[in-house]
C-alpha cells in the first residue's frame, strides 16, 4: 500500500510576480494520490484539491464573469471530478482532465446565468472581490471593454495572456479548433488595444 505524505497548502501563492500558477511536477506522487482517491480515500482527494484549486480557479475565472461564479464553477467541477474519478485513467494528466471539467462547469454556469439575466445585462465585467484600485482608469476602461468583447474572445485572451495556456490547450478547454482560438486572440487584442489607444490619446 502506498503511503502519501499530505502537506497543507503546499503550492506557491498566486501573486503578481508569479502569474502562471503551476502545479508541481510530481507525476508519481500525483498518480498515487489519484489511485488512493479512486479507492475512496478522501484525504488523497483533498490533497488533489489543494494542489489544483488555484489553477482550476484561474481557468474558471477566465470563462465566467464574476469571482463568485468562478468559485461555484470550481466547487461544481471538483464534485463532478470526484464522481467521475473511477473513469479517469491514472496514467493521464490529472490537471488537464480536471481543467476540462472546470471549463465545462464554467460554460454551464455562463449559459445558466445568460438565461437568468437575459433582461438584466451587466454594464461591465464584475471585478474580482479584492480589486485593489477601483479608481484606476485603465482598469475601469478595460473592464468596460472586456464586457463588450464576445464571451469566447474574452476567455481566450485571459487564458492565453494571463494564464499562459497554449492555443491548443485553449481549444481543448473551450471545445473550439486551435485556429479559432488564434483568431479570437488576435481580434480580442485588437479590440482592447483600440480602446487603450483612445485612453492615451489627448482628449
Amino acid at each position, binding site marked *: 500500500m502506498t503511503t502519501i505524505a499530505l502537506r497543507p497548502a503546499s503550492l506557491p501563492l498566486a501573486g503578481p510576480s508569479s502569474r502562471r500558477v503551476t502545479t508541481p511536477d510530481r507525476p508519481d506522487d500525483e498518480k498515487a494520490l489519484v489511485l488512493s482517491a479512486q479507492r475512496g480515500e478522501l484525504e488523497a482527494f483533498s490533497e488533489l484539491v489543494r494542489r489544483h484549486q488555484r489553477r482550476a480557479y484561474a481557468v474558471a475565472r477566465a470563462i465566467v464573469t464574476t469571482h463568485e461564479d468562478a468559485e461555484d464553477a470550481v466547487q461544481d467541477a471538483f464534485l463532478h471530478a470526484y464522481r467521475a474519478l473511477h473513469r479517469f485513467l491514472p496514467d493521464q494528466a490529472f490537471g488537464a482532465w480536471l481543467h476540462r471539467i472546470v471549463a465545462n462547469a464554467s460554460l454551464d454556469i455562463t449559459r445558466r446565468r445568460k438565461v437568468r439575466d437575459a433582461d438584466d445585462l451587466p454594464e461591465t465585467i464584475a471585478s474580482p472581490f479584492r480589486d485593489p484600485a477601483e479608481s484606476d482608469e485603465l482598469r475601469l476602461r478595460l473592464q468596460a471593454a472586456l464586457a463588450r468583447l464576445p464571451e469566447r474572445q474574452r476567455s481566450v485572451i485571459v487564458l492565453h495572456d494571463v494564464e499562459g495556456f497554449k*492555443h491548443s490547450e485553449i481549444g481543448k478547454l473551450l471545445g473550439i479548433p486551435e485556429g479559432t482560438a488564434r483568431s479570437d486572440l488576435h481580434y480580442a487584442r485588437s479590440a482592447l488595444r483600440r480602446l487603450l489607444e483612445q485612453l492615451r490619446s489627448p482628449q
Partner: protein
Amino acid sequence: MTTNYSAPHLVPDDDPGEADLTRALRTLYAAPEADGYWSALEQRIMDRVAGGDALDAWWYVPAQWARIGLIAAGFALVVAGSLFLRSRAEQRQMAFDSVVGPSAGGPTLAIHDAATERQAMVNYINGR
C-alpha cells in the same frame, strides 16, 4: 528554379501584447492570495464531496438505474405506438365497412355483367 508559395492568412502566434494591457489584465484576473481563502474553499469542496452534495443528491440516480429506466420507457413507447396504430386501423376498417361493407343497411347497387349487356344489345338489334 524557384517556387512561389502563397502563405495562407495566418494570425501571428507571438503577437506581442501591450505590456500595460497584459499587466492590467493580470491585475484584473488575479486569483486571491490569502492562504485562508484557499483553505476555506478546499473545506467547502470537501464538505460537498464528503456529504455527497445533499442539495442535488435527491435527483442523482445511479447510471444503472437510469439505463433501466430508459429501456423501460422505450419499450412503453413501442407498445403505445403499436396499440395506437392498431386502433387506428380498426377504426378505418369500421368506417369502410359502414359504407360499403356487406353488413351495411344502405341501398345496394345492381352489378351488371358486361356479357349480359352485350347480349341485350344484340337482341335489340335483331329486333327481339
